[in-house]
C-alpha cells in the first residue's frame, strides 16, 4: 500500500464505526447502507489531501459522512430494498454480557436505530452527532449553524428521540 492508502486505512480503522453508524441512521436498507458507507469512504479519500488540521479529524470525518448521507438520501436509487439492516449482526456486546443480555442489548439497539431513522432530517443529523458524543460546538461546526442554534436543536432532538423510545416501549 502507498502512503495515501495507508492513511485512509488508518483513518477507517479509527473512525470506520462512526461512519457506519451515521450511514445506518440515514439508510434502513442493508445493501444501500453498505453502498453509502463505501461512498463516504471514497469522499473521505478524496477530501483527505485538503485536511489542514483546522478542525478535529473526527469532526471532519463526521461532516463528510453527514454530507454524503444527505446527498445519498436525495439521490436514493429507485431500486427496491435488498435486506433490512436488522439482518446485520455486527454488534459488540458488553464484555460481561450473558447471551440473554446480548440479545436484549441488540434488540434495544435496533429500537434506538429505528427511532433515530424516523426523526425529521434536522433532528436526525443533530441526534446522531449527540449519540456519537460530539459537543454542541462540534455539532454546530458539522451542521454549519451557530452554537446556540445547535444547542437548541440538540435539546429538541434528544427530547424527540426520548419521546419516540418511550412510545415504542408502551
Amino acid at each position, binding site marked *: 500500500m502507498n502512503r495515501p*492508502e495507508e492513511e*485512509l*486505512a488508518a483513518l*477507517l*480503522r479509527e473512525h*470506520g*464505526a462512526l*461512519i*457506519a*453508524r451515521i450511514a445506518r441512521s440515514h439508510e434502513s436498507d442493508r445493501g444501500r447502507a453498505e453502498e453509502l458507507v*463505501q461512498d463516504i*469512504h*471514497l469522499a473521505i*479519500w*478524496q*477530501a483527505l489531501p*485538503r485536511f489542514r488540521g483546522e478542525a478535529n479529524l473526527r469532526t471532519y470525518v463526521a*461532516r*463528510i459522512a*453527514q*454530507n*454524503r448521507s*444527505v*446527498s445519498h*438520501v*436525495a*439521490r*436514493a436509487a429507485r431500486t427496491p430494498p435488498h435486506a433490512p439492516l436488522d439482518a446485520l449482526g*455486527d*454488534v*459488540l*456486546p458488553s464484555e460481561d454480557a450473558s447471551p440473554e443480555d446480548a440479545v436484549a*442489548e441488540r434488540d*434495544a*439497539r435496533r429500537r*434506538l*436505530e429505528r427511532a*433515530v431513522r424516523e426523526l*425529521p*432530517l*434536522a*433532528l436526525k*443529523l443533530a441526534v446522531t452527532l*449527540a*449519540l*456519537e*458524543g460530539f459537543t454542541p460546538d462540534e455539532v454546530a*461546526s*458539522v*451542521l*454549519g*449553524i451557530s452554537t446556540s*442554534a445547535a444547542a*437548541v*436543536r440538540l435539546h*429538541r432532538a434528544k427530547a424527540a428521540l*426520548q419521546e419516540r*423510545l*418511550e412510545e415504542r*416501549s408502551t
Partner: protein
Amino acid sequence: MTAPDWKDLERLWQSHAAAAPALRVIRKQRRRKWLSTLVLGSEVVITIAGIAFGAWFIALGTTFGLVAGGGLVVFTLFAAAASLWARRLPSVAMEESVTAALAAALRRARVSVRWGFATFWIVAASLVFYAVISFLWAAGSDYPPALVRRMLVVLGVWMLWSALAQGVAIYYYLSRARELARLEEMARALAADG
C-alpha cells in the same frame, strides 16, 4: 424502556462496530476514473467526427451541403461547449458544513435540471432539422443516386446517435429533477426544524 439515560443511549448507539474495507473504495475510485476518462474520450471522438462530417458536407459546395454541414458543425460545437460548461460546474466539497453542502448541491442540481431541459429541446430541434433535410434530399435532389444514398446513410447514423442521446437526456433530466425535488424538500425540512 422508559426515559433511558442519555449516557446509556450513547453507549448502546456506539456498540455497533463495522469493518473498514478501504481497498474496495480505492478500486471503486479507479473504476470511476476509468469510466470518466472513457466518457470524455468518446465525447472528444464524437466532436471530431461531427466536425469532420460537417466539413465534408460543406466541402460538397452545394446549398444543401452548406446548410446540413453548417448545422452539423454548429450543433456539434454547441454540444461540446455544453459538455465543457457542465464539467466546469463547481463540485460540492464534502468537507463543508451540512448547510453549505446542501446549498451547493441545490445550486448544482438546479443548473443540471436546466441543462437537461435545454439539451432535450436542442436535440429534438436537431432531429427535426435533419429529418426535414433527409426528406428534401430524398424527394428532390439532382445528385447522383449513389451519392444521395451515401448522404442519407450518414444522416441516418447521425440521427440514430441523436435519438440515443435524446434518450440519455430524458433519463438525465428526470433523475436530476427528482433529485432536485428531494434536495428542496430536505432544505425546507432543515429550515423548518431550526
